[in-house]
């Protein structure tokens, strides 16, 4: 289908974009790369009166290291993340995840800010933000707000952003020395939305987890930072304790039913990913028992 009619405004600055948002409020949608917004408009899931194109706002583009923080501008494209040496060094989880975000032609236009503001629960980047304890920086008429990623995602396509606010950047704590990461997802086709996925980062010392963050996605209405990770920190993981953690994970998840899978299938796949993840991060392949049963 084609998008319904809308008026188009090209913002000339962040201030101008905020002025346009103040005028049009929730009748407007912000267009960055358009790789989530345009499908939704073509499918008539969204019919904004006004589209505010922020593609000219060069100040929202780019990746810089500031002290212990990697700052990524909202308009930074997926392909820019993929090619960035700073991302590979300081946020290797994001480097591993980005190749699973759609396909080359979409990564050439899709932006990190657009993906996060869209907040599809089956998409990769929101889960990475939660796992990496990112801060989402937004600007509105009252100035700047800084929102923890764990507080930012509120539901399917719902975030803490107000209609008069613009997502301008994300800040990622630089991955601690000695940290390792794991990213895997199940999808019908490489690059499609996940059926279930896991973005994890850990610090392993002497064969045990000194820290472990497990961000599951496509298992509920928003990315889930699994509390079950706490059961695996500072203990020697055995097949029995891991099976216990997997059982607790199943209780923690509230997956949805859709064309791609039932809640039971999603719970099973989440367990499979947990076992793979722990086995990989601890470099103990025998722990990956395949989540049978």
């Amino acid at each position: 289908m084609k998008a319904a009619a809308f008026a188009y405004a090209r913002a000339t600055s962040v201030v101008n974009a905020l002025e346009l948002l103040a005028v049009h409020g929730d009748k407007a949608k912000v267009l960055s790369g358009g790789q989530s917004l345009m499908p939704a408009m073509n499918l008539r899931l969204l019919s904004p009166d006004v589209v505010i194109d922020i593609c000219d706002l060069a100040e929202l583009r780019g990746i810089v290291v500031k002290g212990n923080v990697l700052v990524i501008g909202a308009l930074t494209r997926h392909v820019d993340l993929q090619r960035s040496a700073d991302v590979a060094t300081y946020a290797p989880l994001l480097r591993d995840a980005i190749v699973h975000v759609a396909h080359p032609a979409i990564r050439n236009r899709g932006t990190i800010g657009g993906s996060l503001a869209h907040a599809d629960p089956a998409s990769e980047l929101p889960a990475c933000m939660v796992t990496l304890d990112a801060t989402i920086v937004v600007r509105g008429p009252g100035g700047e707000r800084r929102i923890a990623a764990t507080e930012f995602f509120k539901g399917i396509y719902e975030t803490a952003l107000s209609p008069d606010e613009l997502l301008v950047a994300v800040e990622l704590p630089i991955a601690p020395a000695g940290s390792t990461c794991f990213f895997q997802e199940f999808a019908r086709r490489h690059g499609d939305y996940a059926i279930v996925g896991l973005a994890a980062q850990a610090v392993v010392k002497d064969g045990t987890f000194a820290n472990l963050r497990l961000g599951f996605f496509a298992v509920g209405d928003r990315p889930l930072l699994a509390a079950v990770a706490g059961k695996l920190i500072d203990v020697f993981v055995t097949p029995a304790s891991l099976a216990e953690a997997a059982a607790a994970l199943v209780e923690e998840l509230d997956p949805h039913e859709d064309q791609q899978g039932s809640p039971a299938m999603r719970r099973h796949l989440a367990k499979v990913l947990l076992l793979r993840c722990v086995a990989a991060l601890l470099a103990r392949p025998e722990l990956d028992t395949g989540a049978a049963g």
Partner: protein
Amino acid sequence: MIAPMSVSLLVNGEPVDAFVLPRLNLADFLRENLKLTGTHVGCEHGVCGACTVRISGEIVRSCLTLAVQTQGASVETIEGLSDSGEIADLQAAFRERNALQCGYCTPGMLMTAQDLLKQSPTPDREAIREHLSGNYCRCTGYQAIIDAVEATAKARAGRSS
């Protein structure tokens, strides 16, 4: 009423000036306004890849790009790549190996395959599959397409060494 907006861009190297409604996507602009019907419209939500074109040298989905967003841009379509001879060998390889049947996906496949070969001169079959993962073909089962891209990569590598 929403008024048409002016847009000026390059299409296959030639300047184009037009007035378009904001809702018009680039695929429809190319097909309906410029009669460049090599760019195909499949799913219209970014899944099938039939509408793939190049903007500023990078492949994009023309169904997910508004014509008004291409102000000042350089757009290249399958007609441009074909007429310039840039992909003549790739097209020949597709023909030789029956890498197309109905041909609906072929322009997008060629655009995407050429994009890969520009970035990575000797990709293995896995890399070819991954790069083409965003392009659906409902006829060939993909094997012949992978064969054609792999053969073209090898032939080009042989010529340049």
